[in-house]
């Protein structure tokens, strides 16, 4: 029977996906738990595979809550936990307020420079926290651009202030804010204009509509944005690694140091689990916040806010070109976007600098730094390219396959499968990396250290991007197109090639760009898992920075920025051309 044939094929692929999840996700997570409660860096699956099941029993006998209690009693860890939560809450709060203001600034017709703010609001998307932190250090840190320029003029630039929680907050706010801006802007545009107009006819003025209608309707988007920023900030390792002095504790940095500095396995594992639990809780909260709160789909066609009016506002003929509030919005946006622009400019200027003495400007400019990282010793960049491309290929294949199974051939256990595939998206690299090292450092699954394990970790954390992108596109694609192909005689392979693939191509491309960007700028997984012979450019950049070769570091930063900006601009251009 045809039905049975189709189902059986789906089952084989499903088993493959489960197998992949067990190896790449479940074993590291289980190992983390085992390590946390036994202080032994032993992977129970290895014992099983090696034919020594009694080792598992030994391991179970050693289970005790003592290591966990000990960690919670240590002042250093308690302090780190408190700092981490306080830091991420502050970042999320500031980014939500700033992002919302910018979202309004990009839509309100009276705001001076509205289109510029809209163009710039996506710019920080091309600056991940890693590059942001590097750029910030190059701009304002010791030996950076600002002290170099200002000190000769007799102005004492407080470079040390950069190395603080304040510096981390600044970088994270600037780099993570687009999450809020784009989300709130889209939500604002989707709101049903009729709701605002109804409020007007009932006697509400715009200043009444904003707090009573607009903001309540935006609340789910604001909350989701807040939690997304919180999660990203909490899992961000790059910024504190680069900016935070050792005296200032953060959970994610302590976990890393415990493992690499002293092989304190249990402590590293317990902190990793704590990080995962907090991030997962935020994710669950975010899902709940968005669930059933989508006011946009009440059946009314939403008005288009981009046509020169914002939801809940009305421009009277007598209104001035710009109100004071609108000018203030422009000022705030300008201030916010100054930072990423300065970060990039300082990276560029330092990358072109040959030497810089005691004058406000470089003594001489050169292309040598740039040519050194691209032509003379291109190895790190080539490795970045290889790693990104491999990750893209495998992630897109896995993501498309999973999207096809989940959307087109639903079966038992799908929600768990989807959860397992999506969860690594929010899994902090340090936590996952520690789990992977613990799980795969002994035979027979001795993958660590190897390029294979690094790519596997990249794939695990980036496949959710592909699944989300392709899954959403497939969800919007009516099944009747595939059915039409089938009734016209198209067998599945033919249908997939000539109907699905061309229609999903934009989704695949955008996922590929996103994956490329995030792999090229990854530092946490890379620092933990990259073998000595396979070190990508992000590591080289970190090392150059660490050993004070700022011009070379800047050159790497510029190249990595171009790596991300060029595909991003190309894709945006293509999309805008496609939509006319």
């Amino acid at each position, binding site marked *: 029977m*045809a039905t049975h044939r*189709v189902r059986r094929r789906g089952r084989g692929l499903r088993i493959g996906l489960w197998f992949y999840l067990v190896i790449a996700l479940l074993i590291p997570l289980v190992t983390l738990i085992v390590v946390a409660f036994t202080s032994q860096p032993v992977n129970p699956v290895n014992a099983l595979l090696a034919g020594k099941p009694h080792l598992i029993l030994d391991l179970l006998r050693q289970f005790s809550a003592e290591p966990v209690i000990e960690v919670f009693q240590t002042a250093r860890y308690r302090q780190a936990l408190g700092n981490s939560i306080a830091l991420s809450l502050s970042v999320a709060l500031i980014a939500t307020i700033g992002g919302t203001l910018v979202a309004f600034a990009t839509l309100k017709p009276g705001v001076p420079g509205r289109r510029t703010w809209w163009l710039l609001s996506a710019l920080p998307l091309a600056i991940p926290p890693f590059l942001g932190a590097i750029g910030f250090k190059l701009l304002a840190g010791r030996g950076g651009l600002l002290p170099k320029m200002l000190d000769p003029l007799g102005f004492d630039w407080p470079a040390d202030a950069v190395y603080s929680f304040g510096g981390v907050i600044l970088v994270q706010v600037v780099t993570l804010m687009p999450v809020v801006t784009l989300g709130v802007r889209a939500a604002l545009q989707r709101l049903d204009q009729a709701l605002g107009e109804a409020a007007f006819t009932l006697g509400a003025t715009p200043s009444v509509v904003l707090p009573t209608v607009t903001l309540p309707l935006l609340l789910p988007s604001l909350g989701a944005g807040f939690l997304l920023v919180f999660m990203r900030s909490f899992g961000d390792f790059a910024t504190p690694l680069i900016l935070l002095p050792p005296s200032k504790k953060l959970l994610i940095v302590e976990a890393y140091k415990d493992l690499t500095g002293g092989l304190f396995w249990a402590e590293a594992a317990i902190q990793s689990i704590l990080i995962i639990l907090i991030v997962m809780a935020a994710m669950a909260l975010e899902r709940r916040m968005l669930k059933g709160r989508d006011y946009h789909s009440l059946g009314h066609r939403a008005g288009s806010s981009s046509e020169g009016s914002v939801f809940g506002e009305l421009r009277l003929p007598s209104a001035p070109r710009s109100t004071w509030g609108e000018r203030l919005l422009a000022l705030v946006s300008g201030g916010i976007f100054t930072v990423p622009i300065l970060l990039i400019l300082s990276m560029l200027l330092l990358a072109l600098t040959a030497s810089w003495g005691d004058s406000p400007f470089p003594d001489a400019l050169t292309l040598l730094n740039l040519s050194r990282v691209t032509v003379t010793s291109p190895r790190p960049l080539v490795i970045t390219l290889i790693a990104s491309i491999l990750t893209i290929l495998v992630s897109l294949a896995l993501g498309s396959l999973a999207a096809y199974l989940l959307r087109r051939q639903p079966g038992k256990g799908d929600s768990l499968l989807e959860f397992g595939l999506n969860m690594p998206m929010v899994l902090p690299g340090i936590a996952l990396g520690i789990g992977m090292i613990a799980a795969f450092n002994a035979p027979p699954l001795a993958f660590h250290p190897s390029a294979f394990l690094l790519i596997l970790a990249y794939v695990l954390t980036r496949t959710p991007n592909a699944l989300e992108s392709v899954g959403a596109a497939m969800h919007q694609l009516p099944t*009747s*197109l595939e*059915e*039409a192909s089938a009734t*016209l005689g198209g067998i599945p*392979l033919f249908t997939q*090639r000539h109907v699905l693939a061309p229609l999903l191509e934009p989704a695949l491309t955008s996922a590929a760009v996103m994956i490329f960007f995030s792999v090229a700028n990854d530092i946490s997984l890379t620092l933990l898992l990259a073998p000595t012979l396979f070190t990508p450019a992000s590591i080289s950049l970190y090392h150059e920075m660490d050993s004070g070769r700022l011009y070379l570091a800047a050159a790497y930063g510029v190249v990595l920025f171009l790596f991300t900006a060029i595909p991003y601009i190309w894709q945006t251009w293509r999309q805008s051309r496609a939509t006319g």
Partner: protein
Amino acid sequence: MSTKLIFDGISRRFGTTVAAKDVTLAVKESEIFALLGPSGSGKTTLLRIAAGFEFPDTGTVTLGDREITALPPWDRPIGLMFQQYALFPHLDVRTNVAYGLLARRFRQAGLLERLQLLIGLRRRAWNDPEMLRLTDEALELVEIAHLAERRPANLSGGQQQRVALARALVTRPEVLLLDEPLSALDAGLRERVRAELRALKTKLGLTMIYVTHDQEEAFALADRIGVMLEGALVQVASPTELYRAPVSIEVAEFLRLPNRLPGEARVADGSLSVALEAGFALKMDAAACKPGGVTALIHPEEIHVLAAGSAEAKAAPAEGFTRVAATVVDTEFRGASVMVTLAVPNGTLFALVSSQEEGWRRREVLIEFRTMSVRLYPQGAGAATTLTGGE
């Protein structure tokens, strides 16, 4: 005419919902068969079983003399026109229409040609004179040859509909399934396309199964109509027969026939006396129905409206006619005809009369109808027993 597509004892359930309940149906060669039913009645499930997207839990589907129950859709010589057309948005009109030919070619091709076809469709299609000819023929058949280079997004609804038809016809399917294909068109266009579909059937001798919930569309287009209610095929008949003699009061209700009057039938003096709750009685042949609770169905066009006091009204009713005094409470002018709402002693009746008549303009009237035209349905039972005969 021989039979073309046979559904034999088809049942299909989705969880606890029964979408098809033991459906047996033989669609004849070169007929337009309409599957008519409200939404959720199972007509689309039956269509999808014919196309090969759904498979029955029990029963078989036979095409010609070949059983196709378990064949996948791509192995069936059956075309399908979708409700929203499902045109491939990324292909131009010509490639959309040629798609079926290319897909078939792909399956017959050797490895090298398969690879070529996987790489791209256009060149392969236009270098094959036979394929080009068939595609052009299909385009001309529905008069859209001039749109061949356009993308579906740049076509009007009616043009898209034609492309979908050409695409479904190009592979010369033995049966064409149509899933409410006119529902997306406006009223004027709909009538034109209906006429064109009928002409196409005559021209190509095509067997068509047409799924719709719109009885007017089914009446206008179909040779025969199958009515589906709650997963069961309850009546198969020609349009006139279905209209004149619905097999049950539920079918009459679905066809929106008004004047369904409950009452009580009693045998008296060898004839049947039906006392209706509306406040008047019918004298009918004893064979018309068993005694007991009944529902009487009076077609509105059977009712004549006579002005009270007119010569006609003063004369005694002719043999076999029933006459009742009534009051006109509302009229709905429809041009050639008028729908008249009438108050009878204890209820409401609707009469459809010619607008040229005079009676409906008055208030106090007499209504008159042939008693034989009334159909009686026993209450709480399935099929009707009537004088004017079923199948």
